[in-house]
């Protein structure tokens, strides 16, 4: 406690003032309870849902993620199976116990071997559902929870993410708004904020050896996104 008081006291001394309370704290309180937005890049402004999906796909290709678009959840098993076959990857998947993924008729492709749960590091392919996709930079947003273990996002060599087209938003700020809306008190303090929110933009990479960019540093070597829905601009 001594350290805490001394640090806070030191800050106040340096700033030539005392504790901020009452009227002085009110605007700060306001700022953290109703956060103002900063400048939003124009690139996603004014796009309809189809336009956002196109923008997401374009940016995803730029960051070396691959994208398949299918019309319905029923088409996902086929899309996943052919992606794995195309890259000569084993059809053993560790899948998040997510209600959306549960609705997919996996038995349509019986050769896909699917195990539900977290990854223990031995699964070649991880399969998750994204909470949302941010079209601004083709960033997937995944929120941890009992239905969404984070290990699936990092341990498998290949990460396949199912993203309903209707979930795609424009800027990061819209993703936070969606997450706030999903929490009971519509704010994200305490346990209302998921333990881990992962923003994922392309597969793992490094430039640490002579600045040469190599994929698959510690996380997945491949990131494949299956966008579900027939939104078109």
């Amino acid at each position: 406690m001594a350290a805490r008081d001394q640090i806070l006291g030191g800050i106040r001394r340096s700033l030539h003032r005392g504790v901020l309370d009452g009227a002085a704290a009110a605007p700060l309180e306001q700022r953290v309870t109703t956060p103002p937005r900063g400048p939003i890049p124009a690139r996603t402004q004014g796009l309809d849902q189809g336009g956002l999906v196109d923008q997401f796909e374009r940016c995803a290709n730029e960051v070396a993620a691959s994208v398949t678009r299918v019309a319905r959840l029923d088409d996902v098993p086929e899309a996943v199976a052919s992606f794995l076959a195309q890259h000569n990857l084993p059809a053993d998947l560790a899948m998040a116990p997510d209600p959306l993924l549960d609705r997919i008729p996996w038995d349509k492709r019986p050769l896909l071997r699917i195990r539900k749960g977290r990854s223990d590091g031995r699964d070649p392919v991880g399969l998750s559902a994204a909470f949302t996709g941010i079209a601004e930079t083709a960033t997937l947003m995944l929120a941890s929870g009992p239905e969404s273990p984070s290990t699936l996002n990092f341990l498998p060599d290949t990460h396949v993410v199912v993203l309903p087209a209707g979930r795609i938003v424009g800027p990061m700020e819209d993703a936070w708004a969606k997450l706030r809306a999903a929490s009971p008190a519509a704010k994200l303090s305490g346990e209302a904020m998921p333990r881990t929110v992962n923003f994922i933009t392309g597969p793992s990479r490094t430039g640490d050896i002579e600045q040469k960019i190599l994929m698959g540093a510690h996380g997945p070597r491949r990131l494949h996104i299956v966008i579900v829905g027939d939104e078109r601009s």
Partner: protein
Amino acid sequence: MQPTSHAFKQNAHEAIADAKLQQALGFFQFGQAGLAERRRQAVAKLPEFDTLRDSAKAIKDHTLAHLDWYLERFEKNCTEAGGHVHWCRTAEEARQTVLEICRKVGARTVTKGKSMIGEEIAINDYLSENGVVPIETDLGEYIVQIRHEIPSHIIAPAIHLTQKQVEQSFRETHTHLDPARQLAEPRQLLDEARGILRQKFLDADVGITGANFLIAETGTSVIVTNEGNGDLTQLLPKAHIVLASLEKVVPTLEDASTILRVLARSATGQEMSVYTTFSTGPRRAGDLDGPGEYHVILLDNGRSALLGTEFQDILRCIRCGACMNNCPVYASVGGHAYGWVYPGPMGSVLTPALIGVEEAGNLPNASTFCGRCESVCPMRIPLPKMMRHFREQEYERKLSPKTVRAGLALWAFLAKRPALYHRLTRLASSILGRLGRRSGSFYNLPLAQGWTGTRDMPAPQGQTFQAMWRARRAG
């Protein structure tokens, strides 16, 4: 670590004579794919970049002006989410706190994500001395660790090394592998490191990461990486320890988003880094993975004393590295010459601010004041101005060398007497002009070896500037 910033001149001479270092710095400086060029291209693709810089600066200025309030709010929310916040005044307090947490969970090995605060408090040496094995997991940090070096760049720790040197270090360290294996390709080096570190991730008892931001609104810490090592570091062990300095806090998720838009672009030229991870507290009820404990070390180590001074602006720094990527001095001598944790222009300000101008006074002097650092800084930190403040401090405290002080005193004496000044410069330029007429330049000049030691001094031609100016105005 013991700083060698006082020996900058010696360090720089050695760096310039080091052929391997110069080869590595060549990739850094001139490569089409160099970090400075990548930044330029990313900035050109975002018309709002400068507007975002202004907002990012305003966010940090606002937070620093209310730092105590936002830190307390961060603490409250972090604690509500089940995390522990540890306030540490000094590096020593931070080291002891980390060790206590490691001991409590019975840690034998600790994986580490990249953290400059980890370097600042020299946590690796301390843990090793106390029987806990720290393992760096960022590829660059791992390379530097097995070579018993320190990072030479804040985002590209091994930028001073060539691929050949990395290969050699892997062969010397990974002696359990086949000595005849192929390692000539960067891909092979990466795969070898990936394989070795994968097991370390799974075995570690504690994971230590840094923090790019702390968020007051939610009690969250944020890390930004490309490799995914930071996530494996914090996700798999029993406890996650976050090392963060006070000024990392921002008010809200929206504020972090604004700064994220300038961070990766300034650092590596990416629009977003691959992984931006927001962590809030330990594993929740029903979670299938995640650390059982979540600790945040809040380190002061001299920062609160910078508030309200002419050096407060350096606390806006988000450690993107753009200043060093665009610095002609850094590109010539590399990061180790700076002699402590933080190199380049931001290091030339932060180092004397944290460890004193007595030790680090050379650094703010090792600048041409070309201003590129300030012009690329996403947080608009006036780096040259602050270096000048340190030069003034050095002069006022009589720390600068006698010859410099004598020279400045002589110049001041003349500058205050314009008539004498003009007469003397006219005389000097006419003598030098006549002496150097034949060759056009001087190879060697008494009292000016600092100049002629590395280049020729051109002989003055014609009249002095003042004389020409007078003639022009008269004419």
